[in-house]
């Protein structure tokens, strides 16, 4: 892979959409590992409560916003790819990208608001 090209080649919405999809996808794979690891504690009540209590730490709250962002973007852009590949919406791909990105920002904002409010 010529990594430098990813940043030196002219960034158009299509490549940006794909890069964000890749990055959010990899982040979600990382999250799944942590998530499943956490679930192992389910067998023990004490241990599980301790784990969940730990997740209330502000750092995890902030990370939760990132998780929401990754899931939202990945899902909506996934929908965009489905529309392109299954329904042939390729000519509308840019408008789709901006529309769905707008929707993603809205959803992330709505979800992040109650979390951020706790810090005020």
């Amino acid at each position: 892979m010529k990594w430098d090209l990813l940043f030196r080649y002219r960034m158009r919405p299509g490549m940006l959409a794909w890069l964000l999809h890749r990055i959010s996808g990899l982040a979600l794979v990382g999250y799944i590992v942590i998530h499943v690891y956490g679930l192992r504690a389910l067998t023990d009540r004490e241990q599980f409560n301790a784990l969940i209590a730990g997740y209330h730490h502000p750092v995890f709250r902030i990370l939760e916003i990132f998780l929401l962002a990754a899931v939202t973007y990945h899902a909506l852009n996934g929908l965009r790819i489905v529309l392109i590949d299954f329904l042939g919406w390729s000519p509308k791909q840019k408008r789709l990208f901006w529309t769905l990105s707008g929707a993603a920002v809205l959803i992330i904002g709505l979800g992040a608001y109650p979390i951020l409010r706790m810090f005020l």
Partner: protein
Amino acid sequence: MQVTVKIKRFNPETDEAPHWETYHVPADPMDRVLDLLNYIKWHIDGTLTYRRSCAHGVCGSDAMRINGENKLACSVLVKDLGPEITIEPLPVLPVIKDLVVDMTSFFRKYEAVKPWLINDDPPPERERLQSPRDHALIEEATKCILCGACTQSCPSTWADPDYLGPAALLKAYRFVFDSRDQGTEERLRIVDSNQGLWKCYTIFNCVEACPKEIDVTRWISALKRRAVTARY
């Protein structure tokens, strides 16, 4: 107006690594990048090397990377680029000299999809006819001039030099969806693979790069659907 042209130069016979060379060229906003290259070659530095033939967007020989994006030098105007223009060879192909790249791998991929009509029926007295409706399906795809701008713009090509790439897949589409062609099965066998259709992640760099404004991704998607439905 005066434009500054930065060109990535490399002569494998004498240079260890590519280097940038800057030229100041008098230009008209309606000049094409090819005119700038010609000016440099004819008036400033005769050793500058690039391919061009038709100079009118027909032969496909002068695809290069202009201001970070693959384009045809003879089809892009100075007024659309601004006073600072950067020119490099097409990405990830071996450089023969300056802006001339070795297109062998590109044409191998083209040949791999059997870019000719496959039809075993005895030829009719006149040509094999096609209805306007059937032709409309493939018309855009027939406009490809094989410049290579699309295939070399694709991150999948950057990651895997053996990925068939948009130009070859577009050609496969052009014949699979040609009402006169009978080679669908053998062509699908080639493109329905990890280094074919399924390495297209709908990134759209090819569509942005194509000087003939072909919606390459649209036709690759149609071919994907064809490859999947052919299994059932």
